[in-house]
């Protein structure tokens, strides 16, 4: 189990990020329910090990392109949590100055090329970032996140072919949470997702997305492959989706039992805690301390988002062009 060879600092970082995502999402859900957040969000809770297991391999010059369910990817890639929360609250201090909202969080300086409201929107963009790396002779990699729903979108198929024929340093991280909205993936995804990579001659792996270490290991191999110039990899990551499709979704297409079992049996956080404490790599007290710090950080993020000013009305018409 290679992941267990991570340093204490790395393990703590991984745990902190996963916990940060979970607490962030649970809090956004609560704030949405109480009507304090405008619009609509898609929560990443349950899928934390995927974003963190992958992004832990990446530096700021590596890039990711994300989905409508992007909060977790943003946090894992190092976006400022205060800025994210303020963005979701639609405030001027938001990471996108309140213009983007939940579905368009981005921070190019961190290599986060944007959440994306369009299913299948990210893969071509991630290929583009990989192309930049390849043409400029850097060894940065990029990651395209997509869901089990997005795997069917033509843009994803096209991007996989392009990445393979150009040997682009890109990873297709397919987060399979079993659903596209209210429709089960078994109903709409033909065949095996990994075989779509295999058919192109592309490297692939299927991993348990509840297991941080499994994701981390598979992602590490994919990242190294890409950095070596050996082209793309598809990662099929099976993961639960804790909330409904969007916050507010009654989620009644899953039985109460199914949902309870999912939360009980498929939670990356206790699994991680058990692993690292059993292996005596971290102590429970350390982990609990992280939990408390994260909780405080999110409380703080919400408080400052709440009190932050709205964007100036004049900003409505700025940032359309660099120059017009």
């Amino acid at each position: 189990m290679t992941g267990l060879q991570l340093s204490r600092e790395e393990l703590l970082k991984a745990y902190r990020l996963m916990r940060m995502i979970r607490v962030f999402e649970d809090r956004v859900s609560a704030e949405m329910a109480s009507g304090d957040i405008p619009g609509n969000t898609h929560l990443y809770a349950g899928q934390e090990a995927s974003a963190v297991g992958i992004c832990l391999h990446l530096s700021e010059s590596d890039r990711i392109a994300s989905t409508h369910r992007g909060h977790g990817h943003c946090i894992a890639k190092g976006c400022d949590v205060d800025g994210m929360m303020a963005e979701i609250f639609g405030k001027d201090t938001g990471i996108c100055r309140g213009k983007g909202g939940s579905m368009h969080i981005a921070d190019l300086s961190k290599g986060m090329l944007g959440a994306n409201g369009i299913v299948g929107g990210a893969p071509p963009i991630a290929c583009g970032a990989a192309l930049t790396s390849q043409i400029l002779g850097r060894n940065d990699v990029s990651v395209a996140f997509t869901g089990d729903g997005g795997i069917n979108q033509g843009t994803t198929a096209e991007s996989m072919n392009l990445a393979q024929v150009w040997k682009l340093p890109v990873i297709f991280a397919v987060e399979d949470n079993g659903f596209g909205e209210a429709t089960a993936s078994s109903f709409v995804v033909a065949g095996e997702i990994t075989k779509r990579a295999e058919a192109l001659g592309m490297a692939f792996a299927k991993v348990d997305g509840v297991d941080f270490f499994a994701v981390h290991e598979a992602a590490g191999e994919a990242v190294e492959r890409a950095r070596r110039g050996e082209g793309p990899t598809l990662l099929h990551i099976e993961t639960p989706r804790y909330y409904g499709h969007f916050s507010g979704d009654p989620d009644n297409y899953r039985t109460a039992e199914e949902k309870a079992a999912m939360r009980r049996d498929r939670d990356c956080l206790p699994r991680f805690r058990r692993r690292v404490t059993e292996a005596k790599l971290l102590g429970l007290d350390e982990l609990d301390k992280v939990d408390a710090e994260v909780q405080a950080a999110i409380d703080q993020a919400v408080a400052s988002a709440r009190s932050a000013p709205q964007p100036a009305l004049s900003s409505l018409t700025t940032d359309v062009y660099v120059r017009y």
Partner: protein
Amino acid sequence: MAQKSFRQALNEALHHEMRRDPNVIVLGEDVAGGSGASGQKDAWGGAFGVTKGLLGAFGPSRVRDTPITESAFVGAAAGAAMTGLRPVAEIMFVDFLGVCFDQIFNQAAKFRYMFGGKAVTPLVIRATYGAGTRSASQHSQALYPIFTHVPGLKVVIPSSPYDAKGLLIQAIRDNDPVIFLENKVLYDTVGEVPDGAYTVPFGEAHIVREGGDATIVALGRMVHFAREAAEILAAEGIDCTVLDPRTTSPLDEDTLLEMAEETGRVVIVDEANPRCGMAADISSIIAEKAFGALKAPIMKVTAPHTPVPYAPNLEAAYIPDAKRIADAVRKAVAFKRS
């Protein structure tokens, strides 16, 4: 007459037509919902509940949850339409047209012309449009100018529950490809809707209100703001006609020109972006064909040339409102040739 919501009006139209004609089918992402899952079937009935109940009434062969592949299922709907069905395909947000536009504008819209008049393509594509739900740049656009630009498409934008039902029934019975656009913010608005089936013809504008000082042309949700503006102005002694074209393609030019000529002043309200938009289109028709009757510049009240912002205050500023409309009318009324 019964009071019903815009959503319910649409739902009734679908029920009527599916009952009436076995060739009518409904397909799209989660038009039922819950397919393949452990829990409730027909869990969503569409992201906005418009297709709720169809699955139970007509079964999974005619009510299909699709993969998230708009090109495939919209194109399949076009192919099915050309071969005997009358599909109603749902694109959840019109903003998604970018992933399937070819099948709409190069295929469905052009079959008949390219094939020398032999194809008949009774296809309806329903989609939501419009800002106001804090859904940001990729889930809030209007985009009807793009469809209106395309020969071969018909474009429908209902503003009331009554029109929604009658126009949707017309769309389904129509033998050409129809883009049917529903403003998300209107779903819960309520109005009188007969229980039975009826049609509202395409290309016939609705004169919402008559007044001699100016004509306000507005579509979809903007009709409500136009009416509001007209009421504000009436209190000031400015009497406005409010005209709702209801369909942008075909467009009821006759009524438009008639009202422009009667009032001599025209303000066009358009939730879309301004460049090559509907306001521009209608303005140019009047500027060419009713010029002699004009007493003032033709004013456009539109969204700015920007994407739709997320922050509630910015989004509110983005969308035309009664105040901006009233201001434009006042400006037109005050205009004096120098």
